[in-house]
């Protein structure tokens, strides 16, 4: 082939190279999700055979796996549990992390820099070290076997992370605004409520999203603290209750996984950069 002459030809060539190189990564990343989708819509006789191309339908697609979940399992209850748990976690997180983030960023508390890092470090104390003592705490509050136990423990993950995130966010709000408000006769609380919070809505919304997505990333706490089938969050109910003994109903399992996983993945996708900024200490802040 002749050497590319025009700029356009060069660009096309460069794109072909990049697409060729990046396709394997995309395939590896997406294939398990594709496999979920195709399995969820297949009829059983289409699923359990090895003589045909497995990545496409050979019998008509079906909704049966989805309806089965809602009619014959606790799936609906798990989804509701998860949403209610996440909503409570978000409320607790906001009530605690917004003021704390603001105080650390703005009120010039001695050692606030170290205090902020100390709070963030607790985010890194893994659940595996805390779950046994927390199981005692949970039974102390008489919350074992109820999803309220998770409302109690999930904020141990979300508060440190969101405090850190909001601390970075409040630092970007111009200090002049508050000072002007205070000169206008607002107290500290007035300045916070009337000036800082209204311009911080994007940061606060981000914290809410993380309260939801970080709650959905848990498996251990839900597994260890909540035994009754109808009390589980969906991320624990699906892998523990839908698999019974040695029989796997892969069609409905994948349908269940898909309906939870896809929305979370899409929402999280939009906030991933904020997450990375958060953990790397505010890159590009």
């Amino acid at each position, binding site marked *: 082939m002749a050497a590319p002459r025009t700029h356009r030809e060069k660009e096309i060539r*460069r*794109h072909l190279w990049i*697409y060729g190189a*990046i396709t394997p*990564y*995309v395939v590896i*990343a997406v294939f*398990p*999700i594709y*496999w979920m989708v195709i399995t969820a819509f297949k009829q059983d006789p289409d699923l359990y*055979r*090895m003589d045909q191309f*497995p990545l496409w339908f050979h019998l008509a697609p079906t909704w049966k796996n989805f309806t089965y979940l809602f009619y014959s399992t606790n799936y609906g209850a798990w989804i509701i549990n998860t949403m209610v748990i996440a909503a409570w976690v978000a409320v607790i997180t906001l009530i605690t992390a917004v*003021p*704390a983030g603001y*105080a650390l960023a703005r*009120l010039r*508390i001695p050692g606030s820099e170290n*205090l902020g890092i100390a709070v*963030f*470090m*607790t985010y*890194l104390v*893994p659940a*595996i*070290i805390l*779950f*046994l*003592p927390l*199981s005692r705490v949970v039974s102390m509050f008489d919350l074992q076997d109820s999803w309220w136990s998770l409302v*109690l423990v999930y*904020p*141990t993950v979300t*508060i440190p992370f969101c405090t850190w995130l909001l601390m970075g966010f409040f630092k970007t709000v111009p200090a*002049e605004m508050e000072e*002007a408000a*205070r*000169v*206008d006769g607002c107290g*500290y609380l007035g300045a916070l409520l009337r000036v800082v919070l*209204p311009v911080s809505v994007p940061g606060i919304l981000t914290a809410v999203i993380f309260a939801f*997505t970080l709650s*959905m990333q848990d*498996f*251990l706490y839900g*597994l*260890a603290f909540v035994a009754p089938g109808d009390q589980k969050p969906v*991320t624990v109910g699906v*892998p523990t209750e839908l698999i019974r003994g040695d029989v796997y109903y892969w069609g409905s399992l*994948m349908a269940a*996984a898909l309906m939870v*996983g896809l929305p*979370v*993945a899409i929402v999280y*996708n939009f906030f*991933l950069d904020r997450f*990375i900024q958060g953990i*790397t*200490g505010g*890159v590009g802040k």
Partner: protein
Amino acid sequence: MTVRSSSGGPDATSARVAAISVASRARSSGWLRSQSSRRLGFGYLLLAPAVLYVLLLVGVPFLFSLYLSLSDANVGDPVASFVGLENFRAALQSDVFYTSLRNSVVFTLVAAVFKGLLGTTLAFLLLQPFWGRKLVRGLVVIPFTLPISISVLSWKWMYDSQFSVINWFLSRMGLIGTYGSPDWPVWLGQPGWAIAACIIVNVWRTFPFSAIVLLAGFTSVPNEILDAARVDGTSFMQRFRHVVVPMIAPILLIGFLFDTVFTLSDLSIVYLLTQGGPANATKILPVLAYQVGIQSGALGRGAAISLFLFPLLLPLMILLLRNLKRREY
């Protein structure tokens, strides 16, 4: 939105400027110092709920787990007695503990190598400007954004002993025989394949994270600095070596440490794929701690096992702490 005098327009701006200058003059004349006790009181009041929550539900439980590990606490029995280091001694004398410790370390190290390789190459590709880059980026990060217990299920199905889609491809490519032949890998049933299967899921889940952290690092290097270095007559390699690498190293280290802490302490992949089997081939410390502490109800034993993770995690966390502090300035 902030201070707006009733007349609006240019007057509002001048009012604000006046207000700001008053504020800054006030600061220099000690206005703030006279307010400082009130400010601090308000600050501590705002901090209290978060700090208390974290102290009571992370700090106290952590100390409590130290206490548990020194007791014979059981799930059914509220009264526990002090047994000294008995739980640690018992762990150190059991073979399954050493197997788990070794598996944990191997798992974490091997996974780190592969996610590092995949993540770095992916990051370099994503650095290039090309049409559809945003979409590609959105697709490749999906593994990291899916709830972990959900995506593991898809892998469990892909590793099915008889209907594995991976084996279907391998078989069609002629790399393995058909179902039942001796070279047909039973992914979750054979010790070597089982640990590989668990590592693959971890790598799949976290290589996008490595790539995104690396990208964040690259984009944090200001172009002005690179331009300045270029004007100074440096070569590409010199700029990479003396400007880019030192600037992104702390971010990379933070990402690496963060990931290691989570990989080392994650139970869900192994628990859902193999429960530590076959014959403890995939048993890692988190799974062992869960099985001993919750499933057999020996809280004290379980706490002791999970605390063995702490000396592995502590140096990582200290490194992380030092890096975070450095990045603040």
